């Protein structure tokens, strides 16, 4: 498990995917040999919460202890999740979309059309999923954090992550197994890597919601009663 006194550089050496987590906390690169605690202190990020995310990203069997929610500053949870959504919807998905559009133009129109359609549908679905969370789950969580009583509603986060990840993985299968070769093999391979990277990050994002967001909301609700 990562600790506050470890160098942030060592944490990233152990799991390079954590580099994606830093901008979501507003932590800039160029942190030299500073420890996790020092870097978090400089960026005004609660270090225990940041460690929770890093551990979840790295150790498959890590589950944050519900008891720790009482002592950890969880105020950055919603900003963190919102920043992740923003990264997916404003950076990765448009980037992948651009690749797909370009590759589709080099294909027989029928196949290009099928590919674009699948991706557009997927993007609508994932945008919709994020919107639901931002509109219903996050405000509810923030109200609970302030100590307001909130009418209990079912969370939107739980179900559909698996389906979204399945679709991304299906997309890679379609691209490299089933679509006939096209004139842009290098770009196609780049596309596959981009999708796989996104898929693995979204799986981690789903874990943050499953293992932190939902248990935390439940804990807050129990505390209110």
């Amino acid at each position, binding site marked *: *498990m990562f600790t506050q006194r470890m160098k942030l550089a060592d944490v990233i050496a*152990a799991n390079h995917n954590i580099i994606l987590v830093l901008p979501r906390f507003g932590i800039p690169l160029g942190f030299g040999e500073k420890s996790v605690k020092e870097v978090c202190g400089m960026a005004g990020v609660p270090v225990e919460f940041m460690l929770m995310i890093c551990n979840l990203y790295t*150790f498959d*069997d*890590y589950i944050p202890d519900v008891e720790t929610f009482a002592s950890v500053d969880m105020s950055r949870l919603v900003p963190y999740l919102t920043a992740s959504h923003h990264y997916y919807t404003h950076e990765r998905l448009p980037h992948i979309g651009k690749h797909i559009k370009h590759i589709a133009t080099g294909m027989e129109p029928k*196949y290009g059309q*099928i*590919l674009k359609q*699948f991706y557009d*549908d*997927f993007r609508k679905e994932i945008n919709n999923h994020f919107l639901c969370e931002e509109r219903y789950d996050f405000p509810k969580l923030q109200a609970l954090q302030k100590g307001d009583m909130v009418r209990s509603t079912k969370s939107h986060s739980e179900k559909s992550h698996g*389906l979204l990840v*399945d*679709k991304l*993985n*299906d*997309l890679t*299968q*379609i691209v490299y*197994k*089933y*679509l006939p070769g096209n004139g842009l093999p290098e770009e196609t391979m780049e596309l596959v890597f981009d999708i796989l990277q996104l898929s693995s990050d979204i799986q981690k994002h789903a874990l943050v919601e499953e293992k932190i967001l939902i248990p935390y909301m439940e804990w807050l609700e129990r505390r209110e009663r």
Partner: protein
Amino acid sequence: MKSAVSVLIVEPSDIICRGLRAILEDAGNYNVLAPMHEATMLAERLPAISPDILILNPTLLSSTPKQQLASLSQMRPSMAILALVYQYVESNVISLFSHIVDIRQSSSELLTTLVDVVAETRNEPEKNDTIENYELSDRETDVLVLVAKGLSSKEIADRLSISIHTVNSHRKNITHKTGIKSVAGLAVYAMIHNLME
């Protein structure tokens, strides 16, 4: 009769090594390799000694147990790794192992664990080695087309006059053969293969 299972014990205590060895040799069918008392050179030596089962004291692992275990299984993917426990071991380290041998267990409990492990390791490679037929059967193709059209399993069962259980088993095979799970993905597969008229 299957060939003997070779077991490597990596454990600092000679008493425990010898005890474990005696139990395994009494049971027969186990070929106990010369024990090692530390894990530092383990990964390098694995290819040469090629054990089927590694019984390892987790306290011998380095400060990055997960990575070390991963590199061990990478060196020898077919090998099962068991934790040999009698001291305090951190739970996140223990959870890296699928099987645990506790020296307070009886000999028969220990042997039962090993029989299970052998069964698992012997089954897996056979499964992977068989070249399966990845072409969809005619019936699977029928089911795929109806899935792609958006019908539920119940509707497909009615349409093809088969049980819903059979439909689900076809769907499972389709996903296994194509690697595609979502309905939208299967629809794309069907379109690319000109199955939708």
